[in-house]
């Protein structure tokens, strides 16, 4: 495990696309047991930062240390196997699959049976499928998705799709959970449900969570610490109370000088 209760540490991340600098010298750390919120105006580089952690973007400079590995040198699907799981800002579900199969698809990394077993199906593959099905059903129950279990996710309403995404992220049995605006575009009721699921997950699984969110009230309520990004730079870091009092943050949000 990480040293001094640090689960994940990003050091001097620099990322640019052509001439556009998306992230400049961003460093932060995620502790063993906390909900860390990343906030900032649109285009501040929040999603890019998560994409760097997931290995989807490769930062030009800097490193991201996790369990002794530098994530910037590991391919995306291996990062998932190492236990980093996430949801996406613009829902990125497998629209052709049902809710159940979306979750099962995430279990792929925990399944062991090989191609030949898959061809035969009966026996090893079947036994393992059933074993994982049990895990998935627990998640479905936990997220209260029983009624949409077999519906193709392409046909689900927005709020439920967000919920399926959370379910898929949980199906990976993550050691770190990255949530990219899990409550964007929801009504108050749905937001409350989602916040409850996130907090329950955090309590139950004892895993650290990084959350990107625009709803400041919510962030202040659930986050232990907050990192504020603006134009690709980290402008503040601290507990909610510290952030509320931070001038740089107020300037960034209210456009002061």
């Amino acid at each position: 495990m990480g040293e001094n209760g640090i689960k994940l540490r990003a050091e001097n991340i620099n990322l640019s696309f052509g001439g556009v600098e998306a992230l400049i010298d961003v460093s932060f750390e995620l502790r063993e047991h906390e909900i860390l919120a990343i906030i900032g105006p649109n285009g501040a580089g929040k999603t890019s930062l998560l994409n760097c952690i997931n290995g989807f973007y490769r930062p030009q400079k800097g490193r991201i240390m996790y369990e002794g590995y530098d994530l910037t040198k590991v391919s995306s699907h291996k990062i998932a196997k190492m236990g980093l799981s996430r949801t996406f800002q613009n829902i990125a579900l497998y629209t052709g699959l049902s809710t159940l199969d979306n979750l099962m698809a995430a279990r792929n990394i925990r399944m062991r049976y090989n191609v030949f077993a898959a061809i035969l199906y009966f026996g090893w593959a079947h036994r393992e499928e059933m074993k994982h099905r049990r895990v998935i059903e627990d998640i479905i129950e936990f997220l209260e998705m029983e009624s949409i279990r077999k519906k193709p996710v392409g046909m689900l309403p927005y709020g439920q799709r967000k919920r399926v995404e959370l379910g898929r992220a949980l199906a990976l049995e993550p050691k770190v959970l990255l949530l990219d605006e899990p409550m964007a575009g929801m009504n108050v009721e749905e937001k409350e449900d989602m916040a409850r699921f996130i907090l329950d997950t955090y309590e139950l699984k004892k895993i650290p969570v990084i959350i990107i969110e625009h709803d400041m009230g919510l962030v202040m309520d659930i986050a232990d610490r907050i990192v504020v990004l603006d134009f690709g730079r980290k402008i503040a870091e601290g507990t909610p109370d510290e952030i509320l009092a931070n001038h740089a943050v107020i300037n960034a949000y209210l456009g002061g000088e």
Partner: protein
Amino acid sequence: MRLPCGIINKSYSQDTAIVRTNLQWLLLVLALITLFTFPYWASPHWISVMIGVWISIIGVMGLTLLTGYAGQLSLGHMAFVAIGAYTVAILMSDLNWPFWAALPCAGMISGCIGVIFGLPSLRIKGFYLVIATLAAQFIIVHIISRWDSLTGGVFGLSVPKVTLGGFEFKSDFSYYFLAMIFALIAILIAKNLSRSRIGRSWIAIRDNDIAAEIMGVDPFKYKLLAFFFGCFFAGIAGGLWAPYLRYLTPEQFTLMGSVWYLGYMVIGGMGSIMGPIAGVIFITILDEFTAEMVTDLATGSPVFAGFVQASRYIVFGLAIILFLIFEPRGIAHRWERIKNSYRLWPFSY
């Protein structure tokens, strides 16, 4: 999939089984009986047509895994059918291998060459990938038509008959069973692959390749696996064509053939195992119908010869267009909906 009222899942494995209700069991048994007794009551014409159907189903099933499930568009599937066919032909005639050893070899070789042509898919996506498979089509057929010493060049080569013990699969009657059994096995394998972790990973790559990779699906492994299985099936289909046609020439494996494979799949419905079966049957029946129509038009009273020459194109083109306008998602999709509405009848909720 919805179930008729009153059917309750008591275990997960019951929930995932293919055959669920008594009615389904009955239909399955009836269908199998029909298929196995088909040559005894059908006319020779339809037996030979059905052999083509079975073999095409295997090939199109491969394309469905590759394009329908894994989303890797292929315009060169016929070339892999050609590899399978020529592998079987050469192994059987030059090296005197039995068919039963040559066929798996055909699948393996076709699959491995498919993986080679699938390598660019790791970098090239979408329509650009068409070029890799199009290149496969041209390069493979080019090599076949010029490697005279091995393949007989443009004049082709003849293929020995399939034997089992002392029995020769000579007539259409016996070959029907051979083709059907391989097709049924292929359908079963495709079904199993599609409902296993592999099938789900393919769909994940197809629907959202970036999310799939971030959520732990290795695109390298699964794309190549899709190419392997897609081309493996094509190779098996080719391997079954060869001893049936008993003569191979490169001109049997055209680009239009590959385009038709796509056609079978789209008409039948992509991304389902029912799709290729329905598509092959639909287009084959349409084909038989148009051929029959040409004969009728030409042997009737004097007609405008130009129209007869064009008739098959026109009917075929119109049929596909109308079909796509009314059912763009294919027969399998329509079938699912009919089934669902039947099951919920009269209480649709």
